[in-house]
Every structure is written in C-alpha cells, then in structure tokens.
C-alpha cells in the first residue's frame, strides 16, 4: 500500500481514499447494472416466463443471458440522443445526473466491512470514515435530494405526462420521508448515536439483538418508506406506465434514459444497504464474534444482494397503489406508526434507566 502510494506520488491516506471511492462506486454501479438483468430474469421466473436468456458473447457464450447487460449498454450508447423541441435543454441534460448522483452518493457513508488495522493505521471500509459528524443524517439528506432528479427530469421535458409523474413522485417522496426519518430517529435513540459504525456495533453479532427484532414496527415503516423513496413498484408513481405513459422518463432516450434507469437501481442498492445497516447488523456476521475482514464484507454483500432481491420480489408481487391510497398510507398509517414506535421506545428507555 505505502509503496504503491509513493509510486503514484500520493499519501497512503489519499490512495486509500481513492481506492475506496473507486471500489464502492464501481461496485455499486456494476451491481446496479447486474440487477437490471436480475430484475428481468427474476420477474420472468415469477411470472412463469423465461426472460432475456439469448444474448451471447460473440454469438456463442451464453452465460444465462448476462450478456444482455452489455448488449443493452451498447444499444443505449449508440442510440440517437433526442431532446424534444420545447424542452428546457439545460435542465434536460442535467436531469439524469441529478437523479444518478444522489442515488450513488448515499452509499458513501455505509461501512461495507469491518475496519482493520494494518501497519499501525486503521483502515475503515466506508468512503466517509466514521466519526465525521454527519453519520446517518447524510444518506437521509442525500435521499431528499433524489426528488430533484425526478422533478427536474419531469419539468424539463415539457410533457404533461412527465410533469404528472414528477409531481406525484415528489409528493410521495416528501410525505414518506417524514415517516422514514422518524423510524430512523428511534434507532438513533436506542443506539445513542447516529454514526453507522456505532449503530452496527450496538447491534452485535447475534441475529436476535439486531434492530429488526428490537424494532419490528420501525422496520416495517422504514422498509415501506424505502419503496416510496426509490420509486419502485407498489409506489412507482413517477413512472406508472399504465396510467401516464412512462411518467418522468417519457421523453428521455438513449444514454439519458439508461442513466435514469441506472439511477433507480443504484437507489435500490443504497436503500438495501441502508436497510442492512440499520436493521440487520450491517457487516456483522451472525454468530461469529470476531469475523475476518473478508467475511464481514462478504456478509454485508450477501445482505445487500438479498434486500435488493426483496425489492425485485415485492415489485413483481404487489400491484401499484392508487394515488389517494398512497397518500393515505403515508400520512395516516406510516407517520402515526413511526410516531408510536418512537414514543414506545422512548418510554421503554425511560423505564429502564
């Protein structure tokens, strides 16, 4: 590590940082890309179809259709990049990035493995080291920014369907954010800190001490709100393809569309990472007190992939809500539930002290 750093004229800390950024973002992006395929194959199997299985490398190597990702990428890349005449050009260009960047950035805070000490220096496996003062507030704030991506995309394309989708999505996101934040606050409260590293260590390595067991109500609220946040199927009001064409990405084509799609999947990855961190012990390996670094990373990855799969699974099980049902669920169910959760935990804490 030190040798490589001096070779690149960097300090070891800087090199480690760069490495982490590359690993995390490349990893999340490729996972997101793989999940576009997983979603299609998984949904096909759930619906007794077959799904994309024919794309092959060089027309021969058919790795159960995984080459579809490559094929799609190439196709998207070479498509004509159209912008509607009356679109707001600058915002139209900016929108995919506005959607994509916050979706990726939320992941920066999440420790994807156990910290380790090497050569008298501690290495933390998260892009932002623990104790940076932002903690879990950071992904919540960044998640709030995701509204802009959708809304700007909808606004700039100058299309009625788009703006309808964008408005609905932003309303849904904003109203679910409250319930979600309250659910997270009750975790902060029981943990006594809002740093993800603290939350993970407080949960311990035994599955029944994880937050999912301690706060099942909070988990249900948080999980539901995550669906609204990521704009995925029971709450995909941004797209709603049976109602408003394709919602906010109606006018987007080629690479812009693919960026928007990738943003959705990156968002899904971040959301499942958050769920794993907050409620399922992050990188803690069940029943192993002192896991090795590799084991903890593998365990975290497994949790991440599992929750991403649950996102896919629920999407192909539950039909879309009606808009008023969504609002009712958000304000009349999720918000009171998360408040009850908060109050109950506060009461328990006051009793035990």
């Amino acid at each position, binding site marked *: 590590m030190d040798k490589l750093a001096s070779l690149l004229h960097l300090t070891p800390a800087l090199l480690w940082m760069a490495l982490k950024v590359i690993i995390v973002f490349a990893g999340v992006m490729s996972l997101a890309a793989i999940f576009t395929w997983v979603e299609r194959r*998984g949904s*096909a*199997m*759930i*619906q*007794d*179809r*077959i799904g994309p*299985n024919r794309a092959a490398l060089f027309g021969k190597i058919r790795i159960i259709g995984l080459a579809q990702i490559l094929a799609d990428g190439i196709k998207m890349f070479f498509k004509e990049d159209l912008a509607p005449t009356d679109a707001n050009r600058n915002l139209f260009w900016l929108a995919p990035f506005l959607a994509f960047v916050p979706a990726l950035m939320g992941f920066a805070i999440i420790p994807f493995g156990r910290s380790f000490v090497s050569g008298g220096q501690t290495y933390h496996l998260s892009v932002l080291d623990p104790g940076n003062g932002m903690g879990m507030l950071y992904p919540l704030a960044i998640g709030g920014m995701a509204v802009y991506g959708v809304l700007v995309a909808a606004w700039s394309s100058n299309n009625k369907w788009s703006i309808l989708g964008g408005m609905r999505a932003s309303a849904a996101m904003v109203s679910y954010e409250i319930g979600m934040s309250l659910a997270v606050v009750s975790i902060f409260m029981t943990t006594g800190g809002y740093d993800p590293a603290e939350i993970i260590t407080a949960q311990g390595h035994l599955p029944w001490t994880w937050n999912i067991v301690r706060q099942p109500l909070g988990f*249900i609220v948080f999980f539901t709100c995550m669906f609204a946040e990521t704009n995925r199927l029971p709450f995909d009001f941004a797209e709603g393809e049976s109602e408003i064409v394709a919602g906010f990405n109606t006018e987007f084509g080629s690479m812009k569309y693919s960026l928007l799609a990738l943003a959705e999947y990156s968002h899904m990855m971040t959301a499942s990472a958050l769920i794993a961190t907050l409620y399922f012990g992050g990188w803690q390996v069940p029943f192993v007190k002192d896991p090795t670094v590799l084991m903890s990373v593998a365990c975290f990855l497994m949790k991440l992939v599992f929750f991403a799969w649950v996102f896919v*699974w*629920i999407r*192909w*099980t*539950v039909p879309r809500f009606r808009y008023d049902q969504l609002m009712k*669920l958000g304000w009349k169910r999720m918000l009171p539930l998360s408040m009850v959760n908060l109050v109950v935990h506060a009461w328990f804490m006051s009793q035990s002290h």
Partner: protein
Amino acid sequence: MGVIVKKVELSWLDRTYVWPVMKGMAITFDHFIRNLFTPTAKRYTIQYPDMKKEMPEGYRGLHELKRFEDGAIKCVACFMCQEACPARCISIEAEEFSDLNITQGFEEKRPAIFKIDMLRCIYCGMCEEACPKDAIWLRKDYEVAAYDRLSMQYGKWDLMNTYAAADGKERISQDPTPTVPRRTIVM
C-alpha cells in the same frame, strides 16, 4: 338490469396489508423456485427457433399436393378447389397426358400449372374439402414466410415438395409420364 356487487369485508389481518403482501410473496416465490429448478426447455414458453410447437390434429397449415408412389400427381385438374376457394388464390391450368400411345386413345388430365398465392390464402381448408381426389392437403407447417412477394407464389413443384423433407420423401420436379400433345380427332 342492475347487478349487485358484493363488497368483500376484509378481516383485520387483511387490512394490515402486511400479511396479504407476505402471502402474495410466498406465491410468487413458489413460482420463482419452481421455475428456477425447471430446465428452460421444460418451461411453458416454447423457445421458438430451437423448439417448435406440435400443432394439434386438424390444424390447417401449408398445403401439400399429394402424389402417387411413382411420383405422379394425384390431382386431376378438376378445378373444384379453384372454384371453392373463397380467396380466389388458386389458379390451375390443365393438360392431358397418357401412358399409352395416341392410337390407343386413352388420356388423363393433370395440372400443368397449379399455383397458390400464399399471400392471399386464408388457410380455410375449403380446397381440401372440395377435392374429390384427396389430392390437396393442408398440413401442419405454419412457417410460411418469405423475403419477397414472388416467393410466396407457390407453383406445382413447390406444392408437391412442401412436406418432402418432413416425410422423408424425395423431392421431385418432373412428372413421370410425359405430356402428349392434344389429340386431334380427324373425322
């Protein structure tokens, strides 16, 4: 007449929404697992170019003009099919031929040209019904497509060989008996 729609009263368990979603997820997961462990070839979907659907009995597909064992066409050019065809897509020209020589004076009829315009054919099977000789059959080939219009005009030899490969028969392109010129009866 009005119909009274009964509204289903949901139990409290169903109204929590969480439990029904979990039930639904169990169903979809069951499908997923079942499909995951079924090889692709055995699933419902027929993967078309690799696998083909076995058509049911009585399916009306591409026509075949039947032949005798020696390769002679069964059709006697009676024009019944041409008359019966609702799409008017059969056109036949008859000719006479004979095994015997002219002086023996025995003649038979067969089509010199037998054309079906497959672009107009509606695969109704009327020609098959009308044929007194069982010479035209609609069989199970459904892959009737071509790159240009001309290749959709099936001639006599095309129609006689449509199922040659499937039945393991030889392709033929010649009548076993030569045509004889029309005999003129000299009074």
